[in-house]
């Protein structure tokens, strides 16, 4: 039991990183029906932007954080304007390839500027441990979980209570009706990309301030697709629930299965979850729509 909780609790906590990345996916998907494969690179760039501002330019940490995330918002807007807007109306295949091509280019930029070694990140939080249900968890994890959940909650509020958020929900529901009711689709699409880039970037900063930042961290972007699928492609609440669940599954699998398969099961268990969900419940647990199927 002790051991089980020892895997479960950090898993649940670190799983909130999947929630944050998935919220980025979902924000973009429910507004524009684009699945952004470059999400992992946004995640990395969030961390690298903070690294650049705070460690390389030696700005005070709060100013550095503010500038870094302003930069992420700019990245989101530029990405949308110059790569995704020309693709409106193109087949799904072309749009997937667009975001994949984008991820390759962004990866190139990351490697070019920061090389592929592990860089230590500035941290906001004290090290140390907290006792929780008989399991000692690093304090950083607790902060990390708390902030992730706050972001998720804020986003739910944003989509359901604010004007821009409601416009996005309207556009997601029916883009033509939304447009004829005076929603500027171009503006809210840009806004969705900016929001997604910023929250994913925040997630990147938070996790990488624990682990240090290196390009392989971007793999989390694709792994969180499992969370997006399991939650349903539009459901924010679903992502809040499924993120920790997938995180816990990963940790438990790593804890109990690794000795039998020779390690590294953590890297693929999310994809197994993804395939199982796609085969048996492709609309996810909390999704809106019946998905395209034959």
């Amino acid at each position, binding site marked *: 039991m002790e051991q089980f909780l020892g895997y479960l609790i950090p898993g649940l906590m670190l799983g909130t990183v999947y929630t944050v990345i998935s919220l980025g996916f979902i924000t973009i998907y429910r507004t524009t029906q684009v*699945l952004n494969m470059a999400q992992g690179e946004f995640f990395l760039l969030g961390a690298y932007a903070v690294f650049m501002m705070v460690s390389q330019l030696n700005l005070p940490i709060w100013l550095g954080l503010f500038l870094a995330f302003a930069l992420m918002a700019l990245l989101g807007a530029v990405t949308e304007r110059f*790569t995704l807007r*020309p*693709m409106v109306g*193109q087949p*799904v*295949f*072309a749009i*997937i*390839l*667009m975001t*994949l*091509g*984008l*991820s*390759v*280019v962004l*990866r*190139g*930029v990351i*490697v*070019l*500027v*920061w*090389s*592929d070694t592990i860089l230590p990140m500035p941290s906001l939080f004290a090290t140390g441990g907290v006792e929780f249900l008989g399991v000692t968890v690093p304090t950083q994890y607790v902060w990390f979980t708390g902030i992730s959940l706050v972001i998720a909650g804020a986003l739910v509020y944003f989509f359901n209570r604010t004007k821009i958020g409601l416009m996005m929900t309207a556009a997601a529901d029916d883009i033509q009706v939304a447009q004829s009711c005076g929603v500027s689709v171009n503006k809210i699409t840009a806004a969705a990309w900016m929001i997604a880039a910023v929250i994913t970037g925040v997630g990147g900063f938070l996790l990488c301030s624990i682990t240090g930042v290196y390009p392989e961290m971007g793999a989390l972007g*694709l792994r969180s*697709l499992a969370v997006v*699928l399991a939650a349903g492609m539009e459901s924010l609440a679903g992502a809040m629930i499924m993120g920790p669940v997938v995180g816990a599954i990963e940790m438990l699998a790593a804890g109990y299965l690794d000795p039998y*398969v*020779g*390690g*590294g*099961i953590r*890297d*693929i268990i999310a*994809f*197994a979850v*993804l*395939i199982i969900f*796609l*085969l048996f419940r*492709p609309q996810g647990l909390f999704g809106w729509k019946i*998905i*395209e*199927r*034959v």
Partner: protein
Amino acid sequence: MALRPSGVFNYRYSQDMAVIRTKPQWITFALFLLALAVFPFFASQYIMGVAITIAIYIVAAMGLNIITGFTGLISMANSAFMAIGAFTTGVITVKLGLSHWIALPFAGLIAGLVGVFFGVASFRVKGLYLALITIGAQFIIMYVLLHWNSLTGGVTGLSITPPNIGSFAFDSNRSLYFLSLVTCIVVVYLARNIARSKVGRAFIAVRDNDVAAEVMGVNVRAYKTLSFFVGCFFTGIGGWLWCIYIGVASVDHYTLLESIWFLAILVIGGMGSVLGTIMGVVFVEILKEVTVLLGPVVGDAIPAIRDTIGTALPLLVLGGVVLAFLIYEPRGLVHRWEIVKRSYRLWPYSR
């Protein structure tokens, strides 16, 4: 297709069906084959290496072209299917001690069966969702190949001896060139003929509108399965060639990025076109070589990025080229070529 050169008419059915129609076309084709045959006697070892890579990639990309280009099923696991071909070859030649020529059909067959296993998912989902399944397939296949130590040799992989016929061994670049070239020509011939047969037309019908295809009597599930099988078969053969060429079946080469390059090849060349796939492979492989050569030059010019430009430049250039093609020429190089050909045929009335 609709526009033939002026003065060329069909008198018989066989003429209508012919891929190569006129005498000048036959002569050009023969000269082209001759050029390919004498090429290794003049080229340097480096150029030969590039040519072999191109030939092998045409084989593997043709498999993806059948799945994605003809049937419209997005596969992001092409390099993993190639890896299965390579490791099958490794297991058959190293662990079982059989000949490479026995491994050849099995490399295709096992890759094809694994492809069908994941392709069955395409019955239930399509479009975006199939792309996600195949991403999963890419990681899971490579994980299994990496961790099944007793069979695949794990991190080190299996080293492959050159194949031989009698006492003649395919151990030089020149002999490997001919091996790849012949395989490549056979695969191109098959793919071109699949494309215009009943099967190929069924693939295209499934891609363009699967409901309409079903109503017309095309068995959508059977043809999707067949498409994955044939496509992965070719890709597996590509893996067979590749592991013979580099002399080892190991996991490092077959990454997700490599699978993305395969899709990039299709986009750059032109989806669903045999000629387009060939053009795409030639373009992408030459561009890769150029970026590798340019890396140090740029690094010397701008010392601040000397250490990282080598890794970053191929990503930036090829990724950028993919983006540019998607925005400005989504139908690929082959569409440009058609335009040139048409204006040549209509001259002097072309615009």
